[in-house]
């Protein structure tokens, strides 16, 4: 297949389609053509308002997608009515989708535009929501949005967070030559790949042994904006694992050290430090505006809130961790590092039993109560910088290749489990509960601002 254009993030309205919905939609539309409606939630984004597709209603050919009165094919009125009623009842945007021929460029035909002008004012009245049309080729997307406030605007980009983080536009972006600083890197990533990194807003949750490495490398890669979240301060025992930390830094906030390191690595970087726990509303608000999240925090609560944000706001993430089991007799068990890709709509941390509900309940109490609730006083887990590096490197490489469209397979989002003692590296596909209340349309998937993460999370 021809290589897809790499498009840096665009300013303006965007639509994000979870990878599974995109796969289903693509199979329905290409190559023979078809019609469908996407239902989408709303959220603010770093570069403009976002529509978050959470469900796909495909039109059955010759029943729901029929010969058109004006154009070649059209959605049947009863199909449109039922989809619009769902959009109204679910306070969702309504987006009618069809395909055109071609590959890298697409635009609405005059017949398409006339049909929007004929039909969308009424649909907007019925639903009270944003309505619009989306036209696709396998490598391009154009959208015509009729907003609830009465205005009309084009869609700047359509984002599909899968094995690659695809961004589709009506036509390919033109490249801005990368600066000399990143010349060697841009020879792999391309000028548009480098520009993509520069326009991304990436969060690192947890700035300890793994997070410290992530921040250093993200800044050197040229990521434009970093959101840094951790409420902890540096202790003497942290120093061997924190990049460029010294004795004078003991007592300093980890966000301050991370910010200092990021700025040294890249003076032009934009930083948003939040010295709070991730569930603090300020931190959650910043997370929801990101393009990518690295989860490098130990607690069940961090896993829960990041998982919720990934699903509700359709933001891809990677969870990174290391386990070094050592028993009281000093026996070292199977060490493993885990790098788990978290895609919206595709088997979340709850589905994979990676969040302990008892631990989560304890984590949600104030610190003194958390300590009291634990039967055994906390013993620090072993931690070694080389193992942290192994997990962080896997996560960073995945991110760079995904952001610049360089993974061979758009669908591959397996976790990586390293077992360094036996030098094994395994790929692990996630599982999904059919009615998960986080990562399926039956739950909070893509619901965005229709209820904050804080309000909707009942433990």
């Amino acid at each position: 297949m021809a290589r897809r254009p790499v498009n840096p993030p665009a300013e303006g309205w965007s639509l994000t389609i979870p990878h599974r919905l995109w796969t289903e939609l693509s199979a329905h539309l290409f190559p023979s053509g078809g019609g469908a409606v996407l239902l989408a939630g709303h959220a603010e984004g770093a570069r403009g308002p976002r529509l978050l597709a959470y469900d796909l209603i495909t039109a059955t050919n010759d029943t729901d997608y029929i010969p058109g009165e004006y154009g070649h094919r059209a959605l049947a009125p009863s199909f449109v009515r039922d989809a619009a009623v769902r959009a109204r009842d679910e306070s969702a945007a309504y987006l009618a989708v069809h395909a055109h021929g071609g590959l890298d460029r697409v635009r609405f035909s005059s017949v398409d535009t006339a049909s929007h002008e004929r039909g969308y004012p009424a649909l907007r009245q019925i639903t009270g929501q944003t309505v619009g049309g989306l036209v696709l080729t396998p490598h391009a997307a154009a959208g015509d949005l009729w907003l609830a406030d009465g205005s009309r605007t084009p869609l700047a980009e359509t984002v599909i967070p899968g094995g690659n983080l695809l961004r589709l536009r009506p036509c390919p972006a033109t490249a801005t030559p990368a600066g000399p600083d990143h010349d060697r890197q841009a020879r792999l990533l391309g000028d548009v790949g480098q520009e993509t990194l520069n326009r991304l807003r990436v969060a690192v949750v947890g700035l300890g042994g793994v997070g410290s490495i992530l921040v250093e490398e993200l800044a050197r890669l040229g990521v434009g904006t970093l959101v840094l979240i951790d409420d902890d301060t540096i202790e003497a025992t942290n120093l061997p694992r924190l990049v460029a930390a010294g004795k004078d830094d003991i007592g300093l906030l980890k966000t301050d050290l991370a910010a200092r390191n990021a700025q040294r690595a890249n003076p032009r970087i934009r930083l948003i430090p939040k010295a709070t726990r991730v569930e603090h509303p300020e931190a959650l608000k910043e997370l929801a505006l990101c393009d990518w999240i690295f989860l490098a925090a130990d607690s069940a609560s961090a896993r829960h809130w990041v998982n919720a944000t990934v699903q509700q706001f359709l933001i891809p993430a990677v969870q990174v961790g290391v386990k070094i089991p050592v028993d009281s007799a000093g026996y070292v068990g199977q060490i493993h590092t885990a790098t788990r890709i978290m895609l919206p709509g595709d088997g979340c941390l709850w589905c994979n039993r990676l969040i302990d509900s008892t631990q989560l309940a304890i984590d949600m109490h104030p610190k003194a109560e958390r300590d009291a609730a634990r039967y055994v006083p906390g013993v620090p887990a072993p931690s070694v910088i080389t193992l942290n590096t192994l997990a962080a490197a896997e996560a960073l490489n995945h991110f760079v290749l995904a952001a610049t469209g360089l993974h061979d397979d758009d669908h591959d989002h397996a976790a990586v489990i390293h077992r360094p003692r036996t030098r094994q590296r395994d790929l692990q596909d996630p599982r999904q509960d059919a009615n998960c209340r986080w990562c399926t349309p039956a739950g909070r998937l893509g619901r965005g601002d229709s209820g904050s993460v804080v309000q909707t999370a009942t433990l």
Partner: protein
Amino acid sequence: MDTAIEPTAGQNERRPVQVTVTVNNQPVILPSRELTGLEIKQAAIAQGVPIDTGFQLSVKRGNGRYEVVDDDEQIRVHPNQEFLAVPPDDNS
């Protein structure tokens, strides 16, 4: 080499089988061809594999990848099948 599936009862009865698989590279004998994820972990624990029932279990599929198996998910096992069990609370 061990015979992985061994009949242990008379021919006219439903014959229980023993299937030898590996969990974290350690051989584990399972008492049936159909077991849940939890039963596989319990068998491994009983046979000395240093895991607990809270670990996340995966089974190796034909494509060489591991697929997560839930506690109450029943799977059909075959001789020499490979499982991976890791604690879910890795930290950073």
